[in-house]
C-alpha cells in the first residue's frame, strides 16, 4: 500500500522523477567507478603477484625488484641459504638484462630474463616449449613480430653492449623454441626468456654468479612474515618482500589514485544525496495539503514518513540500477586509458568489477536515498494538521 502510494506519487511527475533518477544514476556510476578504482588496483596487483604461488620476492638490500640495476652477488650461495629456510619450498632466480638481436639491419633491443625454466614464474608459454638447452630462448609475440621470426628460427643475440667501444660482453646464436606471455610486462614489450646460466655467461664478469631477484614459494599455510625475516637473517645483503608488502609499496606509489577515488566517490555520494533531498523537499512542499488531509483522516505520522522515504529509496534504486550499467561502461573506458601507462604489466587493472564492491556502492546510494527522504518526510508529517488545512484551503 505504502509502496504503491509512493510509486503513484513519483509517476505524477514523470519527467522530474526520470531526471532525478538519471542524476542519481550518473552519481551512482561515478561512485561505483571510484569504489572499483579504490580496490581494483590492489586486488589485481595482489592476484598478479600471487600467480604461480610465489609468496616472497628477494631483491638486493634496500631495493625493490627491478627498481634499480643492483644485483645480488654470490647468487648460488644466496639461493642455497634461502632454500635452507624451513618453510621455503622453491627458489626461482631471475636475472634481467638488455638483449640485442643483431640479425635485423638495425639491432633490435629486448628485455631478457635469465631464469630456471623448471621453477620460473615470469612467463606463461603460449606455444612451443621451455628453453631447456643453454642455447635456446622463448620470446614474446611483440619481439617475434618485430623480428618477423617464428619458432625454429635462430637469432644472433648479444648482451652487455659497450656504447663507446661498440662491443658486446657476450654474443651467441640462440634457437627460438617457444612463444610466451610475460606476466610482469605489458603486451607490447619486446621480451625473451633464456636460461639463467646463459644470461650470466653472456653478461661477462659483471653478471657472473649474480641475479636481480629470487622468487620464493613457501609451504601452504606457512607464516610468510616469519619466512621473510628468516631469509633476511640468512642473507643479510637482501631485502625480502611479501605480496602484502609489495602491494603496500605499489599502493604508496599510486596513492594518488586511491585518494582521488575517495574524494570523487564522496562528492558523487553528496551530489546524489543533495539531488534526492532537493527533489523530496520540493515534492513534499507541493503536497503539504495532501499530507495534511491524510493525517486528518487518520493516517499515521509513521505511514507518511514511510511513504516519502520509500519515494527517495525508489529513485535511488532506479538510479542505482542504471548507474550500475553506466558505471561498468565508464569503468571499462577509464581502465583502458590507465592501462596505457608505459610499462604497466598486462595483467594489471585499475578498475576491477567485484560484486561486493558494486553492492557496497548501491548500498551507500540507497542509504543516502533513505537519509535524503527522512528530513522532509518528518517535517511534513509533523505539521499541525488543522492550521495546514486552513492555510492550504485559503491559500
Amino acid at each position, binding site marked *: 500500500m505504502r509502496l504503491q502510494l509512493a510509486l503513484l506519487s513519483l509517476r505524477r511527475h514523470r519527467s522530474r522523477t526520470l531526471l532525478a533518477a538519471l542524476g542519481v544514476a550518473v552519481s551512482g556510476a561515478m561512485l561505483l567507478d571510484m569504489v572499483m578504482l579504490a580496490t581494483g588496483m590492489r586486488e589485481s596487483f595482489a592476484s598478479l603477484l600471487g600467480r604461480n604461488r610465489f609468496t616472497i620476492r628477494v631483491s638486493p*638490500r634496500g*631495493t625493490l625488484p627491478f627498481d634499480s640495476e643492483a644485483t645480488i652477488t654470490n647468487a648460488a650461495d644466496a639461493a642455497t641459504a634461502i632454500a635452507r629456510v624451513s618453510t621455503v619450498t622453491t627458489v626461482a632466480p631471475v636475472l634481467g638484462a638488455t638483449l640485442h638481436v643483431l640479425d635485423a639491419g638495425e639491432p633490435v633491443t629486448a628485455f631478457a630474463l635469465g631464469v630456471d625454466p623448471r621453477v620460473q614464474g615470469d612467463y606463461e608459454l603460449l606455444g612451443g616449449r621451455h628453453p631447456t638447452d643453454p642455447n635456446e630462448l622463448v620470446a614474446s609475440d611483440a619481439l617475434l613480430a618485430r623480428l618477423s621470426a617464428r619458432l625454429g628460427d635462430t637469432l644472433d643475440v648479444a648482451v652487455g653492449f659497450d656504447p663507446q667501444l661498440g662491443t658486446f660482453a657476450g654474443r651467441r646464436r640462440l634457437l627460438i623454441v617457444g612463444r610466451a606471455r610475460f606476466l610482469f610486462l605489458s603486451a607490447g614489450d619486446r621480451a625473451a626468456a633464456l636460461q639463467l646460466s646463459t644470461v650470466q655467461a653472456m653478461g661477462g664478469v659483471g653478471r657472473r654468479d649474480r641475479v636481480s631477484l629470487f622468487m620464493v614459494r613457501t609451504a601452504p599455510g606457512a607464516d610468510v612474515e616469519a619466512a621473510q625475516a628468516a631469509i633476511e637473517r640468512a642473507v643479510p645483503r637482501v631485502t625480502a618482500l611479501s605480496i602484502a608488502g609489495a602491494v603496500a609499496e605499489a599502493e604508496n606509489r599510486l596513492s594518488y589514485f586511491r585518494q582521488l577515488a575517495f574524494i570523487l566517490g564522496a562528492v*558523487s555520494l553528496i551530489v546524489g544525496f543533495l539531488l534526492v533531498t532537493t527533489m523530496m523537499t520540493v515534492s513534499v512542499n*507541493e503536497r503539504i495539503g495532501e499530507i495534511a488531509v491524510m493525517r486528518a483522516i487518520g493516517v499515521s505520522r509513521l505511514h507518511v514518513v514511510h511513504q516519502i522515504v520509500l519515494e527517495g529509496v525508489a529513485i535511488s534504486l532506479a538510479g542505482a540500477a542504471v548507474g550500475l550499467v553506466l558505471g561498468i561502461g565508464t569503468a571499462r573506458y577509464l581502465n583502458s586509458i590507465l592501462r596505457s601507462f608505459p610499462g604497466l604489466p598486462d595483467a594489471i587493472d585499475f578498475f576491477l568489477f567485484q560484486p561486493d564492491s558494486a553492492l557496497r556502492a548501491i548500498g551507500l546510494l540507497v542509504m543516502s536515498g533513505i537519509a535524503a527522504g527522512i528530513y522532509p518526510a518528518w517535517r511534513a508529517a509533523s505539521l499541525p494538521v488543522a492550521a495546514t488545512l486552513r492555510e492550504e484551503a485559503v491559500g
Partner: protein
Amino acid sequence: MPPSASAERTIAIDERLAADVGLRIGDRVVLATEPGAQRGDTVSIAAIVKRRADPSEVARSDYRIRMHLDHLQRLTGYGDRVDRFSLQTAPDASVDSVVTRVNAAAFGFRAYPSRAIAVETSKTFLVVRRFHRAIGIITIVASATFLLCIMLLKVDERRRDVAAMRLMGVSRATVVRSVLLEASFVALLGSLFGVALGLVTAWFVNTHYQSVYRTPLRFAIVTTETVAISVVLSLLLGIGAGALAARRLARTPPLALFGR
C-alpha cells in the same frame, strides 16, 4: 678541480634523506655501492639540497646524493665513463643541426634533442591527463543533469506564480526571459562559489600531496583559463537547463499550472 685523493671527499644529500636519517652538514657517512658491503668511502656532508619539482620522481621515495663525478667513477669502478652529457647550445643555434653534427661526428653514443626526451618521458603524464579529462567529462555530464533537475524543480515551484502572471496578461516571452534571468543568476552565483571552492580545494590538494610526496611540485593549478572555461561552461549549462525548464512552463496552460 678535484681535490687530492688523500683529502676527505664531500657530498650533498637531499633534504628527505637528511630528515629521515637525522643527518646534518658536517656529519661523516660511509658510501658503498653494494648493500651490506664491508668497505666503503668515508665522506662528509657538505650540503643539504632541496629536491626539484620533477613530476617523474614524485611517486618514488628514493633518496638522492650528489657527489663529484670523479668520486662516483672511482667508487663504482666505472672508469672514465659517464651516462650522458647535457649540451647547452647558443641561443641562436639550430638544435637539430647540432644534433645531426654530433651524431655524424661521434662514435659510440647518440645525441637527442631535449624536447624528444621530454616527449618520451612525459608519456605517463599524458595518460594521467587523458584520465583527468575523461573524469572531467563525466563530472560535466553529472553537473548538467543535476543542474537541469534543480532548474526543473525550481521552475516547478513557481508554477502558481507563473500561472498568475500569465492570467494577468504577462506574455510567454516575458515568463521565459524571467526564468532565464533567474537561471543565469543562479548559474553565475554557483560558478563564483565553485571558483572559490576550486581555489580552496587546489590549496588543500597541493598542501596534502606536497606533504605526502614531500615535493615542492604543485599538483593543482587554478589558471585564468581554467576559471574562464568553468564559468562559461556552468553559465551555458545553467542557461540551457533554465531555457528547457522555462519552455516547458510557458507551454503549459495557466489553469493547468494552477492545478485546475
